[in-house]
């Protein structure tokens, strides 16, 4: 066995240029597969990171009319949408994939949040209860959070985020100041920020709109004071925190089902839908993978071409070493041994090509990453798989030359000078 490998390396070393050129086909094929797959996986990781955020695992379930969120500002909810009760919330909290959950109401407020002469051009008002900030992953930076007593006593207090704080108070301490929401005065009791460091990368307009919502100004007020600003029986939405990122979709689906169970209508036009960022991320990943899968296919074809190159060279090698084969047979080498020699030579050739291809591919991937800014993710499973695959190619395309070598007539082989 060891001797077989030695023979294989001898064969490769005695024709360095030829072997290198033969390997080139394999190297190019493997390198492109590694480069493409690393970039795809890097892009996918980035998409997931950007959309899902680093571990916040938050899923919102909102009312939808068809494919669009139901706009409470423009229409009243149909009769069959009933007010969400605490027992429904308990039911949702009992879902194994759900870590915590809270109701909230929301309205976009354009230019309706002011303080003194300053106005917030775009912002959202949220009607919440005590648990909402912790579910969403907000932490209080200064002041305090909204409490149960704020809700039960209908206190007109508000928590604002940095955006609002910066826009209305330009750096001054907002706590205790009064802001004007849709004409009603509210006292700022706290400033909050996202607990986990969430810095989405915005590079396209679509992404900008996606993040606009989450990064725009937010004002949180007790839900009990909601009717003061808006309508009395406005439908609420749900926010849940899943136990981990992978169960976001399941948690969202289950919560959606429970909420839709409260609707008193067979096929309602307005219904609850979970707004699962993981799902969106997956759809985007799907899209990028689909296009790149074709690229991998093309790279795969180049591997086959490389394999044919290996076969060609192995056939030449067999012809060239005919006397050697004849001698070995005369000395008592069995057919199996002769074919093993050439199979191993082809395998070593393609394996080396595969390993070099992996190295070139990784360098290439880093180059692409440097140039385009897309992160790369090198999967060692794929690296191992490609090396194994290149070995298989060697075995496959080495089989015919090896068979021919083993079948050589020793007399003919010895006469061949």
């Amino acid at each position, binding site marked *: 066995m060891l*001797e077989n490998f030695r023979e294989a390396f*001898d064969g490769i070393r*005695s024709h360095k240029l030829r072997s290198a050129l033969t390997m080139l086909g394999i190297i190019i094929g493997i390198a492109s597969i590694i480069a493409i797959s690393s970039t795809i996986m890097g892009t996918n990781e980035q998409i997931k990171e950007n959309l899902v955020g680093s571990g916040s695992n938050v899923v919102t379930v909102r009312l939808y009319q068809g494919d669009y969120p139901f706009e409470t500002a423009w229409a009243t909810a149909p009769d069959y949408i009933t007010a969400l009760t605490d027992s429904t919330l308990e039911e949702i909290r009992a879902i194994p994939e759900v870590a915590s959950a809270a109701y909230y109401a929301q309205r976009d407020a354009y230019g309706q949040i002011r303080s003194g002469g300053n106005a917030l051009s775009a912002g959202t008002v949220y009607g919440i209860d005590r648990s909402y900030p912790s579910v969403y992953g907000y932490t209080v930076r200064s002041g305090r959070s909204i409490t149960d007593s704020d809700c039960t006593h209908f206190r007109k207090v508000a928590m604002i985020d940095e955006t609002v704080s910066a826009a209305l108070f330009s750096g001054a301490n907002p706590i205790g100041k009064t802001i004007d929401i849709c004409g009603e005065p509210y006292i700022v009791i706290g400033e909050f920020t996202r607990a986990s460091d969430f810095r989405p990368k915005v590079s396209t307009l679509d992404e900008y709109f996606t993040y606009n919502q989450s990064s725009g100004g937010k004002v949180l007020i007790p839900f009990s004071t909601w009717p003061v600003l808006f309508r009395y029986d406005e439908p609420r939405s749900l926010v849940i925190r899943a136990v981990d990122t992978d169960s976001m979709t399941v948690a969202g689906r289950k919560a959606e089902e429970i909420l839709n169970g409260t609707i008193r209508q067979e096929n309602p036009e307005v219904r609850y839908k979970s707004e699962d960022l993981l799902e969106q991320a997956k759809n985007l990943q799907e899209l990028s993978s689909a296009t790149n899968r074709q690229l991998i296919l093309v790279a795969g074809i180049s591997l086959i071409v490389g394999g044919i190159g290996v076969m060609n060279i192995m056939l030449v090698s067999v012809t060239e070493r005919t*006397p*050697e084969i*004849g*001698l*070995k*047979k*005369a*000395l*008592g*080498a*069995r*057919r199996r*041994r002769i074919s093993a020699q050439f199979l191993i030579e082809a395998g070593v050739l393609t394996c080396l090509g595969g390993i070099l291809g992996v190295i070139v591919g990784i360098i290439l991937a880093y180059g692409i990453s440097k140039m385009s800014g897309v992160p790369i993710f090198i999967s060692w499973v794929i690296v191992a798989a490609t090396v194994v695959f290149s070995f298989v190619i060697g075995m496959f395309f080495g089989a015919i030359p090896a068979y021919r070598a083993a079948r050589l007539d*020793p*007399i003919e082989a*010895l006469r061949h*000078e």
Partner: protein
Amino acid sequence: MLIRLEHIEKTYGTPEHPVPVLHDVNFTMEEGAYYAVMGPSGSGKSTLMNILGYLDTPTSGTYYFEDVDNSRASDVKMARIRNEKIGFVFQSFHLLQRRRAWENVALPLMYGNVPKRERRERAEQALCEVGLKDRMDFYPTQLSGGQCQRVAIARAICTRPKLLLADEPTGALDSRSGQQIMDIFDGLHERGMSIIMITHEHAVAERASRMLHIYDGVLTGGDAE
């Protein structure tokens, strides 16, 4: 009897256009004998040697080696006979250029699954017999033609075969080296090795205990006893 050939025929070509190479070849050989086969090129002497060495099979007739007819043996069995019972020496040495002298000698031992440690030992012993102990670690390119052929002889005898087949072993050598090679064959014969040597040099053939002539596929002198 080491070798017994009975009515060996060998025909190449297609059934419509047969090319007869050997015709009714008969001969026997005792163990320890030293035969020389003489004949012009194209007479069929190489074909005869190939048949004797289990590299080729006769079209008809029976070849008994150690009183056994191996004509129906499998490929693997044939390989084992070649490996264990027969040693080959070729005109053009057929040494592997990328192997040291002793590694070339040990090659058949490897095919015979001799343990690694033993191989070098036995190769050294065989090289000793041909007087090349001090060239063990040389590569064939560092050796003269005569030395190469001596390495090839060492390779042929290291498995302690029953029969040594030599196909014009001096054909590619100058007369002085040829002389040395012939002396080695003489020595091997004295120590009991059975040898069949193909040659067209009369001086070489005369060293053998018996001379066979082959001409147009017909062997003479085979069963003269």
